[in-house]
């Protein structure tokens, strides 16, 4: 069975909500939709306070190429456009909408009938994806139309569909593959057409046997789609790791997957592409896993963007009393939040409620030079070295040691027997080094 070669860890999988299917969550009473839910320039609001909006109506337009449109996920009245707490932990511009009814734009096809045929040209597919505000739903939230616009001089040969979901606890992609497999296949065909490639590879980790079987059965009816079972290893869902596992090719340092002829999309993104192109439905809802060892009903919800996470926690049986930490995302890469009023955004794949005992940080001890962090780093970096360099602000040496190659998977912090906060410092170093590079470029 295939897997990537360098590094990796095996955290307990804990896929508690793997078999619960996807439940649709009704729209909440009010939504907060942040203007910056994607990598790149924040969108510009296209509505004013007091405006009435409908489901699927564009409320903020992407400002520039690397940016993304944002659509209303509910129908109702725009209460205000103000700074509100968003998943970054800071107050940022958000559009707050008070919900009344559920009035969809008539352009959206709400039927669940599968539409297989697509007559669109590659350019019109890409522009539709751009219009629909689709970003990478695996968590990085990179605008998809930018990924699809292959730079001149480079050629895409493979489309990689990422159904790995290597992050423990999360099952959103798993549930989606089981329920919407056919749609994902059609979405894959659409993306193949947009990229003008002949071959698509779907990678699924071996702990999702039912999804592998289901997808492989479906793939037989479609041309040029192959499903691969992959050995379970974190962080296989990382784009570069998945390309290594499936194609045995390494993306060069500082390069993009397209440098080796591959373009990768998460299954969630592929499903959103299907809905955008075939059903005219922009991206305003997504599947979110709500899970945790003491959560009453760990489940997968189809939630509107902007729904406060408190509504999702409520729907899964309420906040467990022993909750010590709330993470957006999984336990490895997730981000702790300090407030349950913050909204679900395009990049929210899960909400993990960690019991107090599980979430405690252990005492930081001195590095014992065991080099475990080097062994597990999937990018071949030396975290033990990067941390003190970042701590001491030695940014030029950080850059030499390829700190920007770090994918922030957290394997080093996970494995460290001295519980050193390696990733915290590396992240800080990354931010400072990219700032340095930007100033150097602007000079």
């Amino acid at each position, binding site marked *: 069975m295939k897997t990537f070669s360098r590094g990796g860890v095996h955290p307990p999988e804990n896929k508690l909500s793997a078999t619960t299917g996807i439940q649709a969550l009704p729209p909440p009473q009010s939504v907060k939709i942040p203007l910056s839910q994607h990598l790149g320039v924040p969108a510009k609001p296209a509505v004013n306070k007091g405006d009435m909006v409908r489901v699927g109506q564009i409320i903020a337009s992407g400002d520039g190429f690397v940016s993304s449109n944002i659509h209303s996920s509910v129908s109702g009245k725009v209460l205000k456009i103000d*700074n509100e*707490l968003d998943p*970054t*932990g*800071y*107050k940022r511009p958000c559009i707050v909408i008070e919900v009344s009814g559920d009035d969809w734009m008539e352009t959206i096809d709400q039927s669940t009938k599968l539409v297989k045929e697509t007559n669109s040209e590659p350019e019109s597919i890409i522009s539709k994806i751009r219009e629909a505000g689709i970003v990478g739903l695996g968590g990085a939230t990179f605008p998809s139309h930018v990924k699809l616009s292959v730079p001149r001089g480079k050629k895409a040969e493979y489309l990689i569909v990422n159904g790995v979901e290597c992050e423990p606890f999360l099952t959103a992609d798993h549930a989606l593959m089981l329920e919407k497999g056919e749609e994902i296949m059609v979405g894959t065909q659409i993306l193949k057409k947009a990229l003008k490639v002949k071959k698509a590879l779907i990678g699924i980790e071996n702990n999702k046997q039912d999804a592998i079987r289901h997808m492989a059965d479906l793939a037989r009816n479609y041309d040029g789609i192959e499903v691969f079972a992959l050995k379970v290893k974190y962080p296989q869902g990382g784009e570069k790791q998945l390309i290594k596992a499936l194609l045995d090719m390494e993306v060069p340092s500082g390069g993009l997957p397209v440098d080796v002829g591959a373009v990768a999309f998460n299954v969630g993104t592929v499903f959103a592409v299907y809905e955008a192109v075939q059903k005219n439905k922009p991206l305003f809802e997504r599947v979110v896993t709500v899970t945790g060892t003491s959560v009453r009903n760990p489940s997968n919800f189809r939630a509107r963007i902007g729904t406060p996470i408190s509504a999702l926690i409520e729907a899964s049986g309420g906040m467990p009393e022993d909750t010590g930490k709330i993470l957006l995302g999984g336990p490895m890469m997730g*981000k*702790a*939040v*300090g*407030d349950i009023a913050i909204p679900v955004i395009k990049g929210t794949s899960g909400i993990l409620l960690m019991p107090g005992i599980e979430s*405690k*940080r252990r005492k*930081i001890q001195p590095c014992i030079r065991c080099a475990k962090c080097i062994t597990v780093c999937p990018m071949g970096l030396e975290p033990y070295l990067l941390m003190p360099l970042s701590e001491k602000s030695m940014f030029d040496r950080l850059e030499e040691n390829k700190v920007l190659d770090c994918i922030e998977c957290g394997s080093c912090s996970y494995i460290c027997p001295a519980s050193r*906060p390696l990733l*915290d*410092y590396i*992240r*800080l170093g990354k*931010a400072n080094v990219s700032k340095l590079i930007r100033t150097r470029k602007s000079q």
Partner: protein
Amino acid sequence: MSTVVIYTIITLITLGAFAAMVLYFVAQKFKVFEDPRIDEVEAALPGANCGGCGFAGCRNFAEALVRSEDFADLFCPVGGNETMAGVAKILGREPATQDPLVAVLRCNGACEFRPKTNNYDGTATCTIESALYGGDTGCQYGCLGHGDCVEVCQFDALHMDPVTGLPVVDDAKCTACGACVRACPRNLFELRKRQKKDRKIYVACMNEDKGGLARKYCAVACTGCTLCFKVCPFEAITMGTNLAFIDSEKCRLCRKCVPVCPTNAIIETGFPPRKEQVQTESSSVPSAESTDNTAEPAGDKDISKNLKKEE
């Protein structure tokens, strides 16, 4: 036996003399001329190597001073005017003068005024916490209290107050080198003009949220109500984003703005206590009793009363 010793001595002396000659000629040939004044200037500098001047240590700064024609933008904040006058004398130029400065912390959000809304248990440095999220209180502008500033202060002028959880500047030891200004991820330190007897009046808040929101999470937040702005006779106060700022160059320490502040966000230190009369005049607003201690927030009892009123 003795001949062996004699030969050894002769050989070693010859070798030594030869090596000395080689070294002498090499030293002459590859001599790097260095202005002797650099050493003199360096000796006149404080030698703290703090980087407050913007150069990598005193030697580097001395080189820049010797090279410079008119000391433009060159100043040693640690040594101050005295040191700069000494340097000017060595180099035979006009001395540069600057008003002495002192660092102040523009946050008064002690634990009692700014309750925690969540617990942060990550790496205990301000830079990392601020990179992760807005902090463990509702105020995303205020002090995080891990003491990155205390760590970088080379002059022992900063200490954490265990009661308030805020760093305290020791005016006598502060040299205004600016290390804390650079270290604070929230930009809470400001270098202000050092006034007579170390008297200070400043707005101890950087919260740019709207007034009500700022007050919700911190009892001593500046709400941007503009009362101080209106009362200032010297136009020293300017309004920023929901925030007042007192310009230390223009402020004449008249103390009129302090009692009008409804949230006690304006702090005065180093003043003698106010007379009774002033207090009765402004009885509707909590008066800020001045103390010599910077950390002591003015009139805490009044604030708690205020809080209850709001609720």
